[in-house]
């Protein structure tokens, strides 16, 4: 039973951690982040399975995590009030070519970060951006101004 409890505790901890570290950290996956991800995965695995090398143990862990993930997803779908807590909410970062500084600062986004994200979407200048929204996934989505 303790292996299921350990899985649940680690799931909740990681879920909360991912919600509080901020989207700035979630949006990029640079080489260092990738290495960090592997290290994190390894540390978490030790805590969850410990010295249990059995297939049964692995099935319990995977099933627990899958079940919790589906439960969170279901709650997110069924209870709209929980969505801001479970999933977060988008934030408008740029409107009509102007960066909303308070919102960008809140998410620890610099002008360079926003410009870089715009370039990745083939937008040369933020002046061409009507809306830039930091999505709950941590990605910046851009809507360009209408040309006419």
């Amino acid at each position, binding site marked *: 039973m*303790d292996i299921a409890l*350990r899985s649940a505790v680690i799931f909740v901890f990681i879920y*909360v*951690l991912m*919600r*509080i*570290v*901020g989207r700035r950290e979630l949006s990029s996956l640079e080489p260092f982040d990738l290495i960090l991800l592997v290290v994190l995965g390894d540390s978490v695995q*030790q805590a969850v399975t*410990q*010295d*249990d090398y059995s297939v049964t143990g692995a099935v319990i862990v995977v099933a627990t995590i899958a079940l919790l993930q589906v439960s969170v997803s279901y709650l997110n779908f069924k209870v*709209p009030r929980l969505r*801001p807590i479970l999933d977060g*909410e*988008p*934030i*408008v970062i740029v*409107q*009509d070519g102007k960066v*909303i500084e*308070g*919102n960008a600062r*809140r998410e620890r986004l610099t002008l360079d970060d926003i410009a870089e994200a715009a370039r990745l979407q083939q937008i040369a200048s933020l002046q061409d951006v*009507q*809306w830039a*929204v930091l999505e709950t996934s941590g990605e910046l989505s851009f*809507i*360009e*101004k*209408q040309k*006419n």
Partner: protein
Amino acid sequence: MFESCRAHSAVPGRRTASRAESTGVAEIPDSIVLRRHRDLQGRHKDVWVRRGLLTLVAVVPILGLFNVFGQRPGKPTVATSAARLQLYAPSRARGGLLYEARFRITARQDIKKAILVLDPGWVEGQQMNTVEPSPLGQASRDGQLEFTLGHIPQGQSFLLFTQFQVNPTNVAWRRPANVELFDGTKHLLTLKHHLTIYP
């Protein structure tokens, strides 16, 4: 109509958008509510909740640095006119960890037959991998572990090393792990010790 769209058209921020639309500027993206997603109305406390939780997360490693979760060894000592016993062992550990417990017995008087008696808490949910030097005898004393060490001349010390590994499933809160020293049947001293095992 979707709820987000209803909310969208109900907020004052939408008025701005209507003006924008009439001047040909791109519409507000669907499900974006300016009052909430741009002006962050009702969301100002969110950042403080996030910072508070992040502080809580930061507290964990700080507590770890201060040995709250083990396994830095302590040196509890008890001395009587007959002997002095010093234990070098952590009182806090975590599941799966390896650690050493060292018992130093200094004879202030001649101890003819030194016997070290450990509470069962020493081996409850953890493995005793090594005892060096090997005791002359091992036995159970009413559920306690008894190690016969033999003669310790006055003024000399006997150093007993033991290596432990905590079972991963072991969890304990201040489990008694006292140590007693006897000379044959004569009780010389008791060292109070306890073990806390974090999951």
